[in-house]
């Protein structure tokens, strides 16, 4: 059984210690799987749903909330990603006082590097799911290349990937 309070706090924690829409993924992945409140497949699917639905990238957690805990989960996820953003009010009041301390810049640089490393773990996790074989890795490489070119819309890339999946695995 999912405990709604702890579920919410896990989403809030992931969001509070993240920067950008996807960097809360590793933390949620760790915690929800540890509690058996999510299946491995939920993560790849929520990212895909998040990509095809409108709004900022970070809304992928709303589909994660829905897939793991229904409408309540989606609602709790929405609240959890909104609260940290309000901290910008505190930061806009306090940042001008500490921005010139060297350690602040060093620490921010460290956090930015950690974010990159953590995103690599997400890629590793997605590509390590049971349904992904060598053909899946080729699809991933193709999607990466198309996205890198910046000429092809993400929706079209996902559509192509779905078509290839349908043809290969049906």
């Amino acid at each position, binding site marked *: 059984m999912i405990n709604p309070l702890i579920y919410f706090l896990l989403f809030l924690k992931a*969001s509070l*210690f*993240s*920067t*950008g829409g996807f960097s*809360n993924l590793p*933390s949620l992945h760790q915690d929800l799987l540890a509690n058996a409140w999510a299946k491995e*497949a939920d993560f*790849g*699917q929520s990212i*895909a749903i998040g*990509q095809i*639905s*409108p*709004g*900022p990238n970070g*809304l992928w957690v*709303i*589909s994660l909330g*829905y897939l793991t805990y229904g409408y309540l989960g*989606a609602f709790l996820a929405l609240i959890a990603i909104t609260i*940290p*953003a309000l*901290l*910008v*009010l505190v930061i*806009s009041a306090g*940042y001008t006082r500490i*921005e010139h301390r060297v*350690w602040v*810049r*060093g*620490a*921010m*640089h*460290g956090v*930015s*590097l*950690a*974010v*990159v*490393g*953590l995103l*690599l773990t997400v*890629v590793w996790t997605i590509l390590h799911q049971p349904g*992904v074989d060598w053909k899946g890795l080729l*699809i991933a490489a*193709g*999607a990466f290349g198309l*996205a*890198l070119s910046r000429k092809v*819309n993400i929706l079209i*890339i*996902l559509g*192509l*990937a779905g078509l290839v*999946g*349908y043809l*290969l*695995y049906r």
Partner: protein
Amino acid sequence: MELQDPRPSKWQLFRIWASVGLQSFGGGASTTFLIQRAFIEKHKWLSMEEFTQLWNLCILTPGINLIALTVLIGRKLGGAWGIAISLAGLLLPSAVITCLLAAGFKTVENLPAVQAILRGVVPATGGIMLLVGLNFALPLIRRGYKEGALYLLASSVLIIACALAVILLKLSVIVVVLGAAFLGALFFSSRSAPPLLGKEQGEQQ
């Protein structure tokens, strides 16, 4: 700061944010673009300079930068009410659609055709995520080049160490982020780094 347009009514503010949310596909870059077009070009409620200052504060805020930006623009245009209305406008319509898509997906997820499609889509999200990581890494690598080989090497080592700490040692993500902040303060502070403000502007995921 002179505002060329009168401040928006609550309903107008809600509608503008809702249209920004509903039109942004493919993530941060398009949302930022739509916000700039609506609030700077069309209505002249903000100057580009102000926008940049607000954005820099958002980079330092945990969570989704764009939501923090929505909070700041909302406050500027309507105080506490402006914040609430802007957040509701950006998030609620998009969140409802995301929910409906997820619900629609739930009803068909066990069909073999859907399973086959997913086996194509899921690795593709992995590839796209790799690009997201690369976009995050580029400004850091560029800065590493400016600061010298040792700085670049230390940065790369920290990236890989963070990834391995989570994958192999199963360390908590929070511990890794706090550890990286601490190491960053120790090793990257002595350099005469350029000021953070103004550095990463325009970097979107």
